[in-house]
């Protein structure tokens, strides 16, 4: 029991993944600044932001709407992200082997933060937050099917194994999945799904700050917003880690391989940041057709190729 609590709260769970995620968030902002020829924030900037919101600022409750649900939604989001972090990172660090079918559990846990943001935005009673919530809902409906197809393709490639541990084990014994044609074709929808799940720029219409003034998070202030920030830091670490587990034979922590592991995480975050910096925000209609038509098509082609062994 104490061991499980340790897994959830300290090592691969809350504390570890949020600290790594905060540094990745700094990395993302620094790369963004360098792309725009700016200097960028200092290294500990995400920690300053988080502690300022948590300790200094006042929490304001909306006059209309439901205050209890409004305050519970960030906690739901954080608990979903922490559970997903534990389930993803335990097999990746080779601590436990997980259980049969945990890919499906991870898939469901990764949607909990987005759903909680919708609940929180609709509970705030703000019309702009409602617009953001409805956009987030449409976005979820479009990218989730693509994400499920990507996971299905991985399951086909890993000879019908439903657990993350054996997916990583098969890749470590032969070659990483990204080295094949179907692997590359699956990786493209995968990275765009991660981009949409993180709410980064081509798919940030739910929290468009210039258009609907932060949308889903417009009414949040003080410590609930700090918890949302923490959830975002955790998601920025575990989603690239999940992609590395699915495509790039997981983490390897022996000697010099630690460097490769760090480079893999930094490389995926760099790719996400570059996509974010070179694209404008698209409309929700375009996002739906992008995922439901083109990315689904790519994923289905990749599954057929994977079935025939390419």
């Amino acid at each position, binding site marked *: 029991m104490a061991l499980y609590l340790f897994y959830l709260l300290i090592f691969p769970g809350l504390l570890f993944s949020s600290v790594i995620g905060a540094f990745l968030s700094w990395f993302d902002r620094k790369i963004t600044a360098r792309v725009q020829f700016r200097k960028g924030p200092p290294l500990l900037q995400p920690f300053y932001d988080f502690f300022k919101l948590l300790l200094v600022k006042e929490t*304001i409750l909306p006059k209309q709407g439901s205050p209890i649900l409004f305050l519970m939604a960030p906690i739901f989001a954080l608990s979903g992200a922490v559970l997903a972090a534990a389930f993803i990172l335990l097999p990746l660090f080779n601590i436990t082997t997980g259980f049969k079918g945990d890919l499906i559990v991870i898939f469901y846990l990764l949607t909990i933060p987005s759903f909680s943001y919708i609940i929180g935005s609709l509970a705030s009673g703000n019309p702009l937050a409602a617009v953001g919530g409805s956009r987030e809902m449409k976005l979820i409906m479009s990218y989730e099917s693509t994400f499920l197809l990507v996971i299905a393709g991985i399951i086909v490639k890993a000879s019908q194994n439903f657990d993350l541990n054996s997916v990583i084990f098969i890749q470590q014994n032969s070659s990483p999945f990204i080295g094949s044609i179907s692997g590359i074709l699956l990786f493209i929808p995968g990275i765009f799904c991660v981009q949409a799940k993180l709410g980064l720029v081509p798919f940030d219409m739910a929290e468009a700050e210039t258009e609907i003034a932060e949308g889903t998070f417009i009414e949040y202030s003080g410590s609930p917003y700090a918890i949302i920030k923490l959830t975002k830091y955790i998601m920025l670490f575990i989603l690239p880690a999940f992609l590395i587990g699915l495509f790039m034979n997981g983490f390897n922590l022996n000697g010099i391989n630690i460097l490769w592991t760090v480079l893999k995480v930094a490389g995926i975050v760099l790719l996400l940041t570059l996509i974010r910096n070179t694209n404008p925000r698209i409309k929700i209609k375009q996002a739906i057709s992008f995922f439901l038509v083109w990315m689904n098509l790519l994923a289905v082609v990749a599954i057929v190729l994977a079935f025939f062994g390419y």
Partner: protein
Amino acid sequence: MGFKNFCFKKSLWVFHFAGASCNNCDIEILDCLTPRYDVERFGILLAGSVRHADVILVSGSINMRDKDRLLEIYNQAPKPVLVVAIGGCGCTGGIFAEGITFAGPVDKIIPVNAYIPGCPPKPEAIIAGIIKLVNSM
């Protein structure tokens, strides 16, 4: 209190309120975010919603219609919040000070922590004002 104050100083998120401004001060405020001046190296970000703001930048003369909006914005902001009046119109009223629709300079309506005069103030002056405000806390 030391740690809290330190974090607050290091991460000021700015909300921009333009009254009946001629837009020059607004352009100079946006200049501060461009690559040449880059206030993000001090942790300053432009916030979209006043609920996330730590500093309210008020530019332009405040007329009778803006007064209610400014009060409402100030009441909606989570405390502690700092107010900076930017430009001659924000600080004193400038050439509009004797106009019939003028509702007083910003410090008659809400408490102001720093004044940055100029018509418009240079981006260097805005950054210097904000750094002085941060150091005085």
